[in-house]
C-alpha cells in the first residue's frame, strides 16, 4: 500500500483494528518514507530497526483494544526515552541516554504505539525556526530552504512530510502552534497542568506543556486523550476530570460565543493575515457560532514579559548541565574552568543569550525591576483572559503574524525572531489551552494558521470549534515531496 503514509492516524488505527493493515505494514511505510526524507533533517536519532521488531511483535499478538494499536510514532527529542539517546537538540546532551521514560511518552507506548525515533528541535526548545539545533536546521516539507518553525520544527516537518502519522511537541511560547501553522498541520498546546512534565527536558517550567501535533483535529483529539493524565511525579500536574476528547468531538458549535480581541491587530501585520482572520470569523459564523469583539488590554506586554520569565527559569533549569554528572564535558584546569569551557562549548549562541538574559533579570538589584514586575504583568494578562471569558467561550486569533520565512532570514535579528511568538505567548503566560489549525495559504502558497484559545481545562470546546471550522475551511496542504529524489 503506497498511500499508507498519507492516511490519518484515525484511518490507520481503524485499518489496523480491521486487520486491513498490520503494524508492520504501517511501520515499514513510515520508515521507508523517513529514510527517503533525510534532506528534511527531521530526525536526530532514529530507532527504525527496533521499531520494526516491535511492530512484528505487536502483529504476533495484537492488542486491538488499545487506542494506538501498533502505530509508529516519532517524538520531539525533548522527551526522555528509556535507552534511547535524548539530546534536546544540544551538544551538551549529545551523548545522553536516559534510563527512564517521560510520563507523556509512557502514556503513548502504553496505548500500543511504537517509537520511530527522536525528532529535531531548537536547542532546549529555544527558537522559532529550528535553526538553533546543534544537529542542524530542519527543512520544511512546504518548500526548500523554508523554516518549519520552532521549536518543534522536526515534529512539524515530520507530520507535514508524512514521516510519522502524528507526533508530540512541547510548547513554551508557541513551539507547537507556530510550527503547526508554518507547515499546515494542527497543533494543540494544552492547559498548563494537563500533561505531565515529568521526563521532559525543562526549558521554562511554569510555561512548558507537551501537546499533540497532527494532520487533522480528530487525530489531535485522539492523541491528546492519550497523553493527558494526572501525574503525582509532577507537582504542577492538575487532577481534573479529563474528557474522551476524540469520542466527544463534535462539529456542533451552535450558539458558542467566540471573542475577537482587537489587540491582536498589530502594526505591520500583513494584509493576508488580516484577511485570513476575517475568513476565520466568517467560518465560525457559518458554523452557527457568534463572534464578539473583546479586549485583552495587556497583550502588548506579553512578549517582553515572556522574554523575562522564560529566560529566568531557563537560566536556572539549565544550570544542571555543568559537565559533572552526565552529558558533554570539556577539559578544564580546575572546576570553574571546566564549567566555563563545558558550557561555552556545549551550549549554542541562542541558549547562551537566554541564560545571560535570565541570569541578569534575576540578579540582585534587577530582580524587582524585571522578574517581579514581569510576574505582576503576567497576572494582569491572565486577568484579561478571565475577564474576556465572562463574555465568550473561546477566542479566535491568527496563530502567527506572518507565514514561514526562509532559513537564515532572521538568524541575525533575534527580536524579529521573537516577534513570531506574539500571538502564542500570552496563552502560555495565562496557562490556557490553544490550538492552531491550518486555515489558508498566503500568496506564496505557504500555509497560514488560526488559533483558538480556550478557557482552562476546556480543551474539548476548542477542539470542537477547530473540528467545525476544519470542515468549512477544507484545507489541503500542498506537499510536493520536493526533497524526495
Amino acid at each position: 500500500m503506497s498511500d499508507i503514509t498519507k492516511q490519518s492516524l484515525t484511518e490507520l488505527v481503524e485499518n489496523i483494528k480491521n486487520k486491513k493493515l498490520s503494524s508492520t505494514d504501517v511501520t515499514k511505510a513510515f520508515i521507508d518514507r523517513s529514510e527517503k526524507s533525510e534532506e528534511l533533517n527531521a530526525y536526530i536519532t532514529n530507532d527504525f530497526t527496533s521499531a520494526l521488531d516491535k511492530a512484528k511483535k505487536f502483529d504476533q499478538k495484537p492488542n486491538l483494544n488499545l487506542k494506538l494499536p501498533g502505530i509508529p510514532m516519532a517524538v520531539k527529542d525533548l522527551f526522555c526515552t528509556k535507552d534511547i539517546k535524548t539530546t534536546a537538540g544540544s551538544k551538551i546532551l549529545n551523548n545522553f541516554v536516559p534510563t527512564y521514560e517521560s510520563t507523556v511518552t509512557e502514556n503513548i507506548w502504553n496505548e500500543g504505539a511504537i517509537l520511530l525515533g527522536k525528532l529535531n528541535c531548537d536547542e532546549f526548545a529555544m527558537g522559532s525556526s529550528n535553526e538553533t539545533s546543534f544537529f542542524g536546521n530542519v527543512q520544511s516539507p512546504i518548500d526548500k530552504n523554508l523554516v518549519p518553525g520552532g521549536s518543534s520544527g522536526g515534529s512539524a516537518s515530520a507530520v507535514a512530510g508524512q514521516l510519522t502519522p502524528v507526533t508530540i511537541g512541547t510548547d513554551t511560547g508557541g513551539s507547537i502552534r507556530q510550527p503547526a501553522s508554518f507547515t499546515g498541520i494542527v497543533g494543540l498546546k494544552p492547559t498548563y497542568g494537563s500533561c505531565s512534565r515529568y521526563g521532559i527536558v525543562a526549558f521554562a517550567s511554569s510555561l512548558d506543556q507537551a501537546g499533540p501535533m497532527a494532520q487533522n483535529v480528530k487525530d489531535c483529539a485522539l492523541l491528546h486523550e492519550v497523553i493527558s493524565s494526572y501525574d503525582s511525579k509532577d507537582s504542577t500536574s492538575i487532577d481534573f476530570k479529563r474528557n474522551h476528547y476524540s469520542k466527544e468531538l463534535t462539529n456542533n458549535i451552535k450558539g458558542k460565543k467566540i471573542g475577537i480581541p482587537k489587540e491582536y491587530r498589530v502594526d505591520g501585520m500583513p494584509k493576508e493575515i488580516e484577511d485570513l482572520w476575517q475568513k476565520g470569523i466568517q467560518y465560525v459564523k457559518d458554523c452557527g457560532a457568534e463572534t464578539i469583539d473583546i479586549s485583552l488590554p495587556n497583550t502588548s506586554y506579553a512578549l517582553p514579559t515572556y522574554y523575562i520569565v522564560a529566560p529566568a527559569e531557563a537560566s536556572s533549569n539549565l544550570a544542571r548541565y555543568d559537565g559533572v554528572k552526565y552529558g558533554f564535558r570539556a577539559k578544564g584546569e580546575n572546576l570553574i574552568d571546566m564549567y566555563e569551557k563545558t558550557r561555552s562549548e556545549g551550549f549554542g549562541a541562542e541558549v547562551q543569550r537566554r541564560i545571560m538574559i535570565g541570569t541578569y533579570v534575576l540578579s540582585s538589584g534587577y530582580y524587582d525591576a524585571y522578574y517581579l514586575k514581569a510576574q505582576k504583568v503576567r497576572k494582569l494578562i491572565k486577568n484579561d483572559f478571565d475577564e474576556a471569558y465572562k463574555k465568550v467561550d473561546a477566542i479566535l486569533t491568527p496563530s502567527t503574524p506572518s507565514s514561514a520565512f526562509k532559513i537564515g532570514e532572521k538568524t541575525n535579528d533575534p527580536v524579529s525572531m521573537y516577534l513570531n511568538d506574539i500571538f502564542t505567548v500570552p496563552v502560555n503566560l495565562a496557562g490556557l489551552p490553544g490550538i492552531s489549525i491550518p486555515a489558508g495559504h498566503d500568496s506564496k502558497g505557504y500555509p497560514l494558521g488560526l488559533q483558538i484559545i480556550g478557557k482552562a481545562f476546556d480543551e474539548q470546546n476548542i477542539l470542537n470549534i477547530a473540528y467545525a471550522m476544519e470542515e468549512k475551511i477544507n484545507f489541503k496542504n500542498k506537499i510536493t515531496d520536493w526533497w524526495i529524489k
Partner: protein
Amino acid sequence: MSKKNSEYLINRKDNQYEVVIGLEVHAQVLSESKLFSTSATKFGAEPNTQVSLVDAAFPGMLPVINEFCVKQAIKTGIGLNAKINKRSVFDRKNYFYADLPQGYQISQFKDPIVGEGKVILDMPNGQKEVGIERLHLEQDAGKSIHDLDPQNTFVDLNRSGVALMEIVSKPDLRSPDEVNAYIKKLRSIMRYLGTCDGNMQEGSLRADVNVSVRPKGSKEFGTRCEIKNVNSIKFMQLAIEYEANRQVDLIEEGKTIDQETRLFDTKKNETRSMRSKEDAHDYRYFPDPDLLPLEVSEKFIEELKNDIPELPDDKKKRFIEEFKLSPYEANILVSDIDTAKYFEEVVAKMGKNKDIKLAVNWITGELFAVLNSKALEISQSPVSAKNFAILINLIKNGTISGKIAKTVFELMIDGDIDPQKIVEEKGLKQQSDPKALEALIDKIINDNREKAIEYKQGKEKLFGFFVGQAMKASGGKANPQLINEILKKKL
C-alpha cells in the same frame, strides 16, 4: 535577675566590648526519605547508594514535596513557640558547585514555613529568652571529597536532597556559654519532638555563627562576620572567642571590620577569611516553578499540635510542682528526653510509698557515674528503670542501707539483676530487728565497759565509736537509725 556577675565582656585597656551572636542552625529533619525524593537518608551508607534521579538532577526530573518533612518542620515550629505560616514558598538558590547537582538548592527565602518564635535558656543567673527569626526547609547538598586522589575530587550525593531545617536566631546571644545553652536547648526540644536526632558527629546539627562586637552599652550593632558550618558546640565557642577578640583588636587598632564569610580552622583554633562581601554569591533567588506554594490548613496544624508531646519547659515546671524538685534538679532531668523518660518510669515503678528525692539523687549520682564511666547513653542503661525503682524502694523501706545499696547497685549492673534477688542471695538485708540489735549492742557495751563509762562521764565523742563497732559487728547491715536509738537508750 542580675546578669552583672557573669557578663561576658572583652576588655582592652579602658574599653569593654560586648559580643553579639546570632546562629543559623542547620538541623537535619528526622525522616526516612529526602525532602523532594524517595531516596533513603541513612547515615554512613556506601557513597552514592542513596541517590535518585531527582537527587542527581537528571534532565526532566521534578521535585515532589515529602509531606512528612513538612510535618516535622511545623512540629519544630510549634516547639519553638513560633508562628506557623499557612502559606510558604520554595525558592531556588542558584550557585554552581560540583556537589550541587541541580545548580541550585531548593530553599525558602521570602516566605518560610515558620516565622518568629522564642526559646528560653536556663542560665546560672536566671532565665534568658532568645528570639527565633524563622525556620525554613531546604535541601542539603552532596559531599565533595578532595583527599582521596591527588588529581580528582570525588562527589558523594547521598546527602544531596536530604531535608534540613534552618533555624535562624535573632542576634540575642551574648556569650559562648549562652551559645552552648542555646544549642543544647534546641537539640533538646527537637529530640523531644522527634524531628531531629541532634547528632553533631554525624552532621545532623551544625551552625553558621554570626559574630559582631560593640562597645559595652552601645545600642548599635557592629559589623558582623559569619563563620560557616561549625559542627560542634566546643568549636562554636572557640570560634566565637577567637573571632570576637580579632574584631576587638581591629577596632582598638583603629581599623574597620570587613563584613565577610569566615571559616574556623579547628587545628589552629582561629577563623580565616573565606570570601568578602564583594565576592559574595548573588544567589538569584526566585520561586521554584516546579513546586506550587506550600499551603497548610488550620486543621492540619491543629492536628500536629495535638501530636506534640510535653516539651522540656513544661516538663520542668511539672517536675518542680509535682515532685517538689529544685529547678536545678528538674533541669538536669528534663534536658535530655531519655533521662526524663527514665526518671518518669522510675517514679511510676516505685509505686505509692516513693521517695522521689532519693531517686533523683541516685539517678544524677550513681547512675550518671556508671553511664559516664562506660560511655553509655541513658537509653542504653545497664540497669532498667524497673530494677532501679526496686532498689530505691529497698532503701526507702529500710531493707538495705544507702551504703549497702551502693554494693547492690554495683552487682545489678552486670545483667540488670533484680536487687531483691541480690539482697537475698548475698544476705545483705539490713538488720532492723530491735531485739537482735539490742543483743548485739549489749555485747559491745559489755566488751567496752571502760569506754561506756567515759561516755557517760561526758566524753560524747565516743558515741561514734560505739556506732562504728555495732556496724562492724553486723557486717554493715545494721540499720544505722536503730543502732543510734538503741545506743542512746543503753549508754
